[in-house]
Structure formats: structure tokens, C-alpha cells
């Protein structure tokens, strides 16, 4: 029986709060209690459709930030001025671009928090970590925004469109140097990563295939923010690629990639790891690969099938994922309903190991247990504290004049006023300590605590002045291993 066959809720395994929370948290970033209740009322199918058919839901009114001009454009425009004036203008253009990149990140985080289409942002994040480009190398904000919009607009579209589009995307062309891939001197970087990391996986092609694909993509470049096919630089010669010969170009290469069975398996494994569990079984990979191929690489029906499947609701899938930094930070902001300067949240994610728009390598982020080590775990617990209280930590311990770490949280931009937290948690604040603990545990963990844990937290709550209770209990819950998984 296929693991991708639909899951049927039953008396022994009913569609209840924990299943609903599981679905909402995997398809989004941190469900609110009222959202979980609504999903329970709707049932599984309607909830999945609501998540997947997000184009039926109006998009959040959050237009992207204004982008500054290209630095090269400014340089050209100021060519007539004095050298000093030009340098001033170019320096300003560079600064504006750096600021704009940060604005894009804050805007994206705000979208993740406010969106009524959580799957759209979650899939955009998936693609960002899969078809990677780093702002470290691509410094023009305009290009990064364009790519981010492209991923969002095609996030549940067809893989062929995604691969073709990303092969023509100026930011990608720059990042993997295909803009200088020329007939006389081919540059293999893009061709290699396209196959190794974006579609087929290592071991499914040869070094000769890499060279042939590189030749096929020669002349694919860009000018400002538009793709340009430079025929003069394109190698029209015969190439042998994956066993076929001909005068192939980039789109032919992509077509042949999609004909390989390994491609469907590669994408199946990626999707399973992102949405279901860190170690999908070979059967699950095969079953999802079949769904991908039979849907001709259209991701909307694939995701619909995945979210309805037995694999998705299997015992192995529940509470088995370690939250990514984005999941943790956005989820915390959503469920506590706090308004925080999004730039602070971006910095927090960076400190925890997921710097948006700056993936560490072309492979993106490995995820799973690699998010957690002694340093990042302590930072996660402390982040929760800063979020609910915002007081700077105790003064530094050592006398050594240490240069600030790049993972330094901008503490002055954190800190939620206590009254806001209480409002969000609503009447939970007015409840007795026991009620407060239950309410916060339910909101944050989607489950009740074991009696021992509940008792201990209750004692902490009772020992705390009423004014501080919500933030302190919230922080304690978020400093538990249970809060790190979903």
C-alpha cells in the first residue's frame, strides 16, 4: 500500500487538535489556538485545500520595499561629474543597496508572520534553501528581490518553469557565474550545481555531462534585471548529455533532467525532509516520486497529496522535526502575537544559524539535528527570554576585549511590553496560575505538560509576582527541549 495513499481519520486516530496542529505547523509557521480550532471544525480535507489553494485567499497587503538603482547605473549617470562627486554617489548607492537587502529580509519576515497564505511563504522558504543564491555574492538588492518574488510566484508551480526561470534569473546567473559562461571559456559552476544540488543529485551524471551542460548554457547572461541570450557567446556545437547528442541549449538540458527518474526521487526526498521527517524511508521516497512524476512535476497536486497522506500522519512524522530558526522565531512571534522590529527577528535567526538571503553554501541549510549544538541551543533559550522581556543579559564575563560576535542579538530592539503579552494571551492572564500554565503550554506546545512538569511550572508561576508571570512562564516553557520540536 502506498505511503502516499490518503490518511483516513478514525475513532482510534481521529482528526483532532494534535493532528490539526501538526498539519498547520508543517504547512506554516506556528498555528494560533483559534486557527487549530477552526481546522478541527473543517476536517482534514477542507483544511488541506485551504492551505494549498491559497490563491483563493487574498494576499496580505504588504508590497515589497522600494529598491534603489543599480550601482552601475549610478556610476554611469554620474560619469560627467567630478571624481569626488561620483565616488560619493557610488558609495551612497552601495549603502542604499545594503540597506535595501535588509529591508527585503524584514519584509519577508513580516510576510511570514502576517500572511493568510502560510504555505506560500513556507514554500518560498523551501525554494530559497533549494535553488540557493546568496546576497554575499549578489549585492544588488533589486536582483535579490526579483528572485524572491519569482520563487514566491512559482512556489507551487511546475518544476520545469522553476528550473528554467531560475536558470534565467539574474541573481542566480551572477551567483553561480553563468553570466561569464562563454563559448571560448566555459564556466562549469552553474551546470554542476544545477545537477548536483538542484535536480538530480550526485552520482547520477558524469563529469563529461557537467562539461556538456556548461556548454549548453553558454551565452545565458543578463543585463541589469533582464535575462539576455548572447548568441555570439553561445556554443552551438554538438554536445553529448546524459546519453543523448545534439546541439543542446539550457532548456534542452532541463528537459532531459526532468526525464530522469533520479530527479523525481531527489525532489521527493527533499520535500519529505522539509515537510515530514528527517529520515524518510525508501518506500516513502519512491511513493512520492511516483506522485511527482504522475503529476508531471506540478507541485500543487503533489503537496495536496502529501498533506493528505498516511506518511504525513504516520507516527514517525509527529513532533519529529527540530524547528528551523525561521520556524522557531516566526512561530514564537506569531503565537505570542508580539510586534517586534522584524530586523531583530532576522538577526535572531542569523544567530541561530539561518541567515535569510545568506545561505552558508550553495547546498542551503542541512537542517534537522544540525540546527542544534551547545551554542545554538543556549541561544534559542535566550532568544525566547529577549523576546518576552528584552532586558539585556548580564554583563560580559571575561576581561578580554573581545570583538563582537556576528551573532550578537540587537537587544535594544527586542523586548515586548508586558501589557502586550498579557493582551495577546488574553484572559489567560486573569486566570489563576494553574490556568495560566495550562493556557501557555497549550498555546506554545499544542499539548499539556506531564503532571510533574505542570506542577513544577506552577510552583514557579506562584513564586513570581503577577506582573511578571506571563513572560517568565513563557520563557521557561520556551527553554525546554519540547519547544524546539514540531
Amino acid at each position, binding site marked *: 500500500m502506498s505511503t502516499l495513499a490518503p490518511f483516513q481519520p478514525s475513532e482510534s486516530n481521529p482528526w483532532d487538535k494534535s493532528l490539526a496542529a501538526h498539519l498547520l505547523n508543517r504547512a506554516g509557521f506556528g498555528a494560533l489556538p483559534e486557527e487549530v480550532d477552526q481546522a478541527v471544525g473543517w476536517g482534514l480535507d477542507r483544511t488541506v485545500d485551504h492551505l494549498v489553494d491559497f490563491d483563493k485567499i487574498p494576499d496580505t497587503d504588504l508590497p515589497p520595499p522600494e529598491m534603489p538603482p543599480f550601482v552601475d547605473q549610478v556610476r554611469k549617470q554620474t560619469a560627467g561629474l567630478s571624481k569626488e562627486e561620483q565616488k560619493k554617489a557610488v558609495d551612497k548607492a552601495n549603502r542604499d543597496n545594503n540597506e535595501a537587502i535588509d529591508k527585503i529580509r524584514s519584509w519577508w519576515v513580516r510576510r511570514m508572520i502576517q500572511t493568510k497564505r502560510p504555505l506560500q511563504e513556507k514554500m518560498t522558504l523551501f525554494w530559497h534553501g533549494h535553488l540557493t543564491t546568496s546576497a554575499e555574492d549578489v549585492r544588488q538588492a533589486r536582483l535579490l528581490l526579483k528572485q524572491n518574488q519569482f520563487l514566491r510566484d512559482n512556489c507551487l508551480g511546475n518544476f520545469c518553469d522553476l528550473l528554467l526561470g531560475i536558470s534565467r534569473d539574474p541573481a542566480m546567473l551572477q551567483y553561480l557565474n553563468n553570466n561569464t559562461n562563454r563559448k571560448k*571559456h566555459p*564556466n562549469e559552476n552553474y551546470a554542476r550545481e544545477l545537477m548536483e544540488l538542484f535536480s538530480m543529485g550526485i552520482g547520477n551524471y558524469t563529469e563529461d555531462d557537467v562539461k556538456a551542460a556548461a556548454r549548453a548554457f553558454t551565452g545565458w547572461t543578463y543585463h541589469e534585471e533582464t535575462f539576455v541570450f548572447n548568441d555570439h557567446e553561445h556554443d552551438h556545437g554538438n554536445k553529448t548529455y546524459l546519453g543523448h547528442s545534439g546541439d543542446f541549449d539550457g532548456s534542452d538540458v532541463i528537459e532531459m533532467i526532468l526525464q530522469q527518474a533520479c530527479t523525481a526521487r531527489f525532489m521527493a526526498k527533499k520535500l519529505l525532509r522539509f515537510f515530514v521527517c528527517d529520515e524518510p524511508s525508501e518506500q516513502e521516497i519512491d511513493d512520492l516520486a511516483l506522485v511527482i512524476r504522475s503529476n508531471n512535476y506540478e507541485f500543487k497536486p503533489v503537496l495536496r497529496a502529501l498533506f493528505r497522506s498516511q506518511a504525513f500522519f504516520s507516527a514517525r512524522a*509527529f513532533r519529529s522535526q527540530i524547528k528551523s530558526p525561521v520556524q522557531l522565531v516566526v512561530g514564537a512571534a506569531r503565537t505570542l502575537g508580539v510586534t517586534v522590529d522584524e530586523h531583530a527577528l532576522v538577526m535572531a535567526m542569523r544567530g541561530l*544559524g539561518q541567515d535569510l538571503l545568506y545561505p*552558508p553554501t550553495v547546498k542551503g541549510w542541512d537542517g534537522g539535528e544540525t540546527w542544534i549544538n551547545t551554542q545554538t541551543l*543556549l541561544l534559542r533559550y535566550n532568544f525566547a527570554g529577549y523576546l518576552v522581556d528584552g532586558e539585556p*543579559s548580564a554583563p560580559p564575563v571575561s576581561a*578580554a576585549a*573581545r*570583538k563582537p560576535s556576528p551573532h550578537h542579538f540587537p537587544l535594544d530592539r527586542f523586548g515586548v511590553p508586558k501589557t502586550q503579552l498579557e493582551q495577546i494571551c488574553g484572559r489567560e492572564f486573569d486566570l489563576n496560575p494553574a490556568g495560566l500554565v495550562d493556557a501557555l503550554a497549550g498555546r506554545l506546545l499544542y499539548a499539556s505538560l506531564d503532571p510533574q512538569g505542570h506542577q513544577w511550572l506552577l510552583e514557579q508561576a506562584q513564586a513570581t509576582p503577577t506582573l511578571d508571570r506571563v513572560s517568565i512562564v513563557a520563557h521557561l516553557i520556551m527553554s525546554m527541549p519540547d519547544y524546539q520540536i514540531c
Partner: protein
Amino acid sequence: MTKEIIQTRREFLRRSLFFLATSYSAPFFLTRTVLALDSARANASTASLPGMPDERVLVVVQMGGGNDGLNTVVPYGLDDYYRVRNTIYIEPDRVLKLNDTVGLHPNLARLKAMYDDGRMAIVQGVGYPNPDRSHFRSMEIWHTADPQSKTVAYGWLGRYVDNECPGCDAQANRINPMGAIGLNSEMPLALKSRRGLSIAMDNPDAFRWTPLAEEARDPKHAAATFEKLNHVVTASLDNPEIARLDFLSRVAMNAELSSTRIREIVKKYKPGPVRSYPNSGLARQLQTVAELIGGGLDTRVYYVSLGGFDTHANELGTHGRLMTELSEGIDAFYSDLDRQGNGDRVLTMTFSEFGRRVAQNASDGTDHGTAAPMFLFGRCVKPGIYGTHPDLQPDKLDHGDLKFATDFRSVYSTVLENWLGAKSAPILGQSFEKLAFV
């Protein structure tokens, strides 16, 4: 299913020593090794080998992205170098000459000074058979020391700390969770240890849990609260949720133990009047390492990294800046260590996942290559140049790439046996011919 809860740190430490043998279905040989070593250690002294001081430290510097070996140790005496690098070659009169054939990149002046001072060794042409030109695969190979297997989950240094358990006290049944420290918020695979004896730490100041309530910040109170929140559950790990919680709890407890110790250490450390470290990522990490060594931490292995070496385009500028960062960082580090009196205790080794192609590409850069040099620093090294320089002649190349002469595991083996006093074969899977640089 009964759940046992480990309440105290002492219990955690005690249990962890034998956890592998009892709860995980570990491969048989590994279980036997662990038990065998534990009983051997129970009888042996804490020193790994007679006469081998326990204070020896290894620092590994990872240069991520594929460092261009030919522009680092420049074969200025070979014509082939200039023939295929018409715009990105280093001019011969700028090269810091080491002999008639090779010299260092001009921005490595401080390292040249160390070389002249007898504190640097160079191993040329380091690589491995059937080289992989994928960043991830090749880096994985260097981290696991296993070019064959693709499913190795632990690193060579992780296996070192698993086998040797430096700083552990078998008689008191105490483990040391800081056998190796990665100086970053990302734990390198090389350090990944089955028994959890490595930690990642970015910054000693950020390396502790900060509870909210003022009174809860009293260290003892904070520790008690932390332990309560993060108690370790030793139930059956078949349930994936329990497996995750177990993993998280262990990391948390390791963090707690380590953070207490590290705070003690940095409190003791008194930085002296020293030429200050440059403002770079590498220098910042090395400064923290120096602080921990100076404060008396008994960690044997530190791992730092420097990225950005993937110079596919406009190589000269980027590579030049990285050379400066490397040179100034290592020099500042050893100045600091010498001031502390620890300069002869510390061996530093640099590596990259591969070198780069001999010929440049059309973007004034180079593509992924193969063999490259490694550096070793410290007063303990036997200075000089080891290994043969790879041939640059076109008919002697491997599809345009250098052929390696020294297997990187020979370098590892030398460091493990001659410096750290550990048996290298169990760690590397077999014996490798050692070199004479230490």
C-alpha cells in the same frame, strides 16, 4: 514503558559514559572498543602514552571553498605556472621565496616570518585518490577521513575524542564534554562524536542560559532551573519524538556543563599587553581559543574556520584579502600564546577541501581542483617543506588538475600519533605512512 529521569548533572555524567553500550544499538565493534577502552583507562593513568604530556593542543583551521594552492605556495620557478595563468599569476618578484621553486603569496609575510623562525612546516601536494570536486562531498571526505563510505556520521576528530576521551576520568566515572570545541555556531562534522564529547561555542559571553527573574540569575539557582527544564529521559528511543527530546536534552546538559566550566576559565584569564588581534573573523575565533588555553581549559582540539575561498571569478582581490586574514590571524594567535608561555604546546594545521585548477578560467578566477598544500604552525614542528610539488606540465595533469602526492590521512595520522599520542588506525580505518613534520 518506564521513563527514567536523570535529575542531576552528576548522574548525567556518570550515565553518559556507558550510555552508548546500553541504549543505542551501536555497531558491535564500536561498543566493544568503548568498553575495552574504558576498562583499560580505568587502570591506566590519565596520560595517553607514557611520557606524552597531556597539555598538547591541536588547532585546525578550515579554509572553506577550495583554497587556490598554486597562488598560496607559488611555484614561481616553473614556467607552466605563468603559461596558463596569464592574468591571475603572482609576479615572481613579489613572491616571498622559500627556495628556488616555490615561495609564499606576498600577503603571507607574517607566516614567512614564522617559517624563517622555524615555526612553520608546509606539506605540498596533499589530496586523496579519485578526488571529488563537489564542495560538500570533498569537505565531507576531509571531515570523516573516509573517501569510500558515504554514510559516515562522525568525524575524524570526533572519533579521536570518542576513543581517547581526553580529560575524562574513568575512575571517577566522569566524562569531559569538551574534548573538542568548534569555535562557531555551527558544529563541524569533523568534530561530531558519538559520545557527545565535542561542543560548539561561538562566544563565551553568549554561552550560558539567562533566566529572566533577577534572583534566578544566581548561578546555582539558574543551573537547578535549567536542569529541571532539560531533564534527560532514558526511555526507548524508538519513538521519534522521544529520540528528538533525548538528543536535545543531552545537548542542553552538555551546554550547561560546558558553559559553567568555560565561564570559570575566562574569569581566570588575564589578557596581557599584546599587539591586538586584527579585526577579522579568523582572528576573533583564534582570540577566543587563546583565551581558553590561557585560562587553563583542558580541551585538546579546537576547530576554527574561514570561508570565501571559492574564487571562480576575480580571484586576485578576494584571495589576497584571505591570505592577509590568514597571515595576520595566525601570527597574532601565536604572539598571544607565546606571551602566555603556551607557544610550544599548540600545533595548528590548515586545510581546504580541495585546491583549484591549474589554468585560470575566463572570469579571472579558477574552478574546483584537487591537490593543495597544508600548513602546520608551532614551535613543535620540524620546519621545512614536505612532500613533492605536483607536476604542472599538461601531460602530467589529471584532466587539467594536479595529481596528489601525499594522502591527507598521512598528515592526520602524523598529527594523531606524533602530536596527540593517539593510535591513528582505529580512527582512520587503517594505517597511513607518517611524515616527519612533528
